[in-house]
């Protein structure tokens, strides 16, 4: 905070031409603070390195921002500049000077203080490496008193253009935010929300961000920060989690209030009071376990806050159990009584109950996520043959080709040979010097030819698919002179059907398999394939798939040795 205030006062007083702010955790927050703190004092233009991905966009954003011009649809989305100011750096500098001169007003002929805040300058470097160096010298090139402020997660040393063409910045390091800073930020956000009239409603139905609840919110925030601070110290992330949980947290209080109002009916002047300490403690005890769940779901954005809040709404019975709502509102009073009996029996009833609740919430979570089509587990959404193909592809991706014969080769003395060979191989796997080879499963899938996939698929189906072996009994002899009584012959026949190729093509179009050769057709057996990124190349997913099929996957993976 201190260093941020320092920057603000520096920009206000007399900024150096180039300031570089390194904020490893939350540059967004820093920029917001910077903009809000110096809004009315200087003219500050915020440039996002992600959205300004060409020089033209960059120039236009700066000029429009400086002139506070907003392109409107009715005027044909014209930019500020009269002529083409965005075709080169020269024209931009020229337009910048003209613009600055037009901003100069009054007798002193002094323009406003101008600062350009560039977010994600590393993106500028990636997209247009030539532009970064002139931008650090913008004040010098344009002969104006302006200042360029770059805010980045990376260090200047990693971004700096070569040959010393950029001038050295004034460095500012933003420290990692402490708990106090985060709490302060969240409370400020709450106050802003409670002033916001869109959120506010009539006096009878208070909203969750009512200013009366500030003390309660503070208490809540302390708990949230306590839970989350170990894992993340980004104020925005914690704010997100808090926003997802807070309405649910305070809902019992609001409900109770509205019920009171209803009961009172005529006289509307029931004051909305902040909940008592005891109620607060009960609320805390009830909701605290769900906070760590929220962290695990929301911090990696496995779901969004609204969905999560809906999935984790507390039902009336569990609320009543914790004494958060009056028991007469609960339908099934019987169950309630049972619970109270249980409560009497157990000396510390809170524990088993909370764990049970978490389980319920987890179930709810799973249900809510399975609403969405694309998160359906593969074992449900794919046909059986495709599942076999995926398992085979995983095995082909993760095992070296020379091990195929050892794992799947079937001769007279198959068992013996296989075991011994495996053992010897394992012993040889660790060379005398140098680090052991990284298991394939950690370094990602390797490509394999289609031929190999078909072969492994055949072996898998032959050994593990009861449906395929059933067919042996039926004695219809095909025309090609194939004899299905020979072991493996039928499977061989099955896995070379067109349907298999079609399934592979379908899996490829689903990007569960990835074709690494460029040809469009699935013609030759030499087409190289690979497991797709994400689910089909994760061990856990394929393992569950294999379990459903009855394939002993751990036995079929060559190198299962864990690292470290």
């Amino acid at each position: 905070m201190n260093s941020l205030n320092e920057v603000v006062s520096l920009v206000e007083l007399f900024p150096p031409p180039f300031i570089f702010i390194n904020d490893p955790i939350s540059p967004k927050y820093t920029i917001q603070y910077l903009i809000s703190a110096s809004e009315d004092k200087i003219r500050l233009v915020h440039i996002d390195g992600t959205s300004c991905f060409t020089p033209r966009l960059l120039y236009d954003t700066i000029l429009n921002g400086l002139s506070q011009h907003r392109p409107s649809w009715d005027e044909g989305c014209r930019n500020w500049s009269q002529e083409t100011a965005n075709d080169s750096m020269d024209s931009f500098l020229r337009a910048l000077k003209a613009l600055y001169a037009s901003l100069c007003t009054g007798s002193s002929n002094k323009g406003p203080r101008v600062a350009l805040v560039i977010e994600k300058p590393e993106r500028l470097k990636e997209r247009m490496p030539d532009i970064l160096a002139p931008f650090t010298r913008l004040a010098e090139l344009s002969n104006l008193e302006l200042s360029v402020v770059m805010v980045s997660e990376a260090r200047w040393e990693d971004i700096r253009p070569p040959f010393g063409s950029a001038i050295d910045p004034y460095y500012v390091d933003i420290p990692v935010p402490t708990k106090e800073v985060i709490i302060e930020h969240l409370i400020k956000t709450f106050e802003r929300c409670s002033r916001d009239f869109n959120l506010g409603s009539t006096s009878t139905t208070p909203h969750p961000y009512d200013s009366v609840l500030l003390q309660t919110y503070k208490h809540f925030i302390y708990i949230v920060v306590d839970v989350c601070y170990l894992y993340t110290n980004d104020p925005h992330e914690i704010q997100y989690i808090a926003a997802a949980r807070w309405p649910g947290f305070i809902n019992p209080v609001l409900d109770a209030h509205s019920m009171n109002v209803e009961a009172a009916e005529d006289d509307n002047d029931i004051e909305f009071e902040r909940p008592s300490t005891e109620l607060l403690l009960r609320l805390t005890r009830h909701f605290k376990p769900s906070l760590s769940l929220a962290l695990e779901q929301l911090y990696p954005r496995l779901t969004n806050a609204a969905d999560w809040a809906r999935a984790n709404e507390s039902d009336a019975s569990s609320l009543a159990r914790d004494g958060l709502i009056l028991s007469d509102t609960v339908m099934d009073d019987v169950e309630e009584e049972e619970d109270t009996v249980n409560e009497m029996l157990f000396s510390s009833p809170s524990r088993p109950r909370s764990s049970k609740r978490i389980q319920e919430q987890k179930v709810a979570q799973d249900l809510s996520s399975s609403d969405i089509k694309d998160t359906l587990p593969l074992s449900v959404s794919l046909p059986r043959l495709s599942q076999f193909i995926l398992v085979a592809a995983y095995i082909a991706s993760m095992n070296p080709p020379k091990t195929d014969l050892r794992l799947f080769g079937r001769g007279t003395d198959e068992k013996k040979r296989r075991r011994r060979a495996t053992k010897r191989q394992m012993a040889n796997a660790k060379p005398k010097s140098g680090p052991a080879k990284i298991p394939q499963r950690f370094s990602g899938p390797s490509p394999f030819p289609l031929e190999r996939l078909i072969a492994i698929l055949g072996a898998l189906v032959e050994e593990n698919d009861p449906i395929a072996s059933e067919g042996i009994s039926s004695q219809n002899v095909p025309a090609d002179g194939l004899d299905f009584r020979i072991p493996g012959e039928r499977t061989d026949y099955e896995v070379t059907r067109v349907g298999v190729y079609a399934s592979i093509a379908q899996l490829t179009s689903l990007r569960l398999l990835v074709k690494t050769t460029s040809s469009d057709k699935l013609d030759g057996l030499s087409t190289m394939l690979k497991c797709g990124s994400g689910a089909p190349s994760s061990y856990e997913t394929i393992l569950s798939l294999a379990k459903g099929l009855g394939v002993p996957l751990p036995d079929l993976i060559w190198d299962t040795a864990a690292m470290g």
Partner: protein
Amino acid sequence: MALKRKASSNSIQDSPSKRTRSKVAPSTPSIATGSPRKSRAPKPSVPPNDLSDNSSDDELNIIDQEVPPTPSKRSKRQVHVIIPTPNSSRRPAFPKPKAVQFADALPSESQPSPSKQARSNNYGKPRTEDRAAHPLLQAKFVQLKTPSLTPPPAIPPPIHVPSPQRSPSRHAAKGNLSHHVCESLTFQKRAVLRALQHPPVIESEDASERSTNEIAMEKLSDLLDGTATRGEGNSCLLLGPRGSGKTQTIELCISHLKETPIVIRLSGLVQTNDRLAMRELSRQLSSQVSPALLPEEIRGAANDESLEDDDNPFLDTPTEAVELSVPTAHMHSLIACIPTLGRPTIVILDAFDLFTDHPRQSFLYSLLDTVQSCRAGGRNNGFAVVGVTSRMDTLMALEKRVKSRFSGRMIRTSASIKASQAKNITRAMLTPFMEDYKVDEEFSDMWNASVDDFLADPRTTRILEEACSITGDIRSLARLFVSPVLNLKSVSPWLTASQLELSAETQRIRPEFAYLHTLNYPSLCLLLAFYQADSDGYPALTFEMLYEYVRNAIRVSAVAPVQLRGNSIGMVRCSRQVLLAAFEHLISAQIFVSLSGPSVNAGKNFLKYRCSVDREDVKKSVERNGHSSLTKFLRRAMGSR
């Protein structure tokens, strides 16, 4: 300051006995309040009982000699500077703490300048009835002096100005004073920051030995003078390290010329190809010369934009075909008519080395060819080309035909300044000429004195010396002072050496990833996993491997759960998704650097990364973080080597 003072006075109120004593020797409580300049203040722990301590007579005498006669006019001034406290009206005899702070800060060897006297008088004013206690007071100072560290605190010019009308005047001034100082301070800060951006020209101390920059200046102005007055064609290269005053030199030379020439400033950073350079040149020409004087061709080139409208406006990088639309032969003839203009022309090429990268160097060739063919005494006016660069090998980068047209003159600037010079420059920057800002005269006196103190501090001197021996760049020197100046508040309005030290640490030799130890738990886990993998011989890792390492570590610590005071001190569980989020954070902070670019086919958890943090730094930051389970992880990782 006001707050602190209030606190101190309150504490005195609590103990009436102390209060009476403080009337006798006013300095005591103010020292004990702990001034903002703690580093220099003598030990504050002297009990008030020591006041009647034995002090040798000769010391007293020295002090007495230093006591300046007090002109009566100062008594008027004091009104403005005393910052009234709520308590002051009730207890007028309460001493101002500031008096002692200042007194401490004064170097003993310096003569008490008038301003200092004024200053100390102002603050020391409120003592009236303690004349008799003077020896005691001085004894106090002497006594304080002994236990202090080096540098020794100065013996303050003691103050004993009786002011009969003190209390009423103070009442009158009560309202606006602190505000007044604040305002002056803000003005002063702004002026100093401005001066730091525009450092003054260095002048060497002795006339016998001229500095490199002065020689360069002289040479260059001779050259440009020849062009401006005698119509010569000149070319030269101005070489010097960054921040050595190249641009400053050339601008000064041009401003000293008797006749104002046409000056064209181009920069290799902006004009990245010949076409842009040519267009900018014609634009600048047409803005400086009346259009009638311009020959047809150049006017045409300046209005070239009509032709360029044909370009596809959505093309961001002009293609090669567009660039060639200005034919090089055409360009040559355009530049050749520059000397026929009404006034001599000077072309300044900043970042000259970048111009040599242009294809076939045709722009440079045209310029230098024109220079060479510009004969003195002819009809033509002078034409000079000055290249400015910091790269020493620029001459080698010129093509043969370009090089043969270049005069080969190289003028060097240097950035080597001595520590004494640096001190002078610093003083000039810190005490700028305040023309625009209305700063209270009194305040500026005090400010100047405090700058003197600041520069006299041995730590300041050491930092300045270091700065001069590492780089003579004035800009980087000036940058050191930005943060100390910014941190001035009305509570601590003077520069201190400790703040300079702090700023030198962040601005000069920057520590790599100073914030590592404050990172969150998952990030540190990942860093430690990298540490362990590095010990195992894997310099580059995928996320899957890192996750495996972390998971193993957590599993190992869960096998033998250790509890300390009821809390488990094992490693906290961390889900894969949370770790992945932390991993992506570290990537965007460029702590983990990808070895290959992102690809469509490879999953992001299988991309290989290397860690840009040094092993030692990881170790240190984990130790500094002090998380017990992480320290254990570290020990295990170190053991696995």
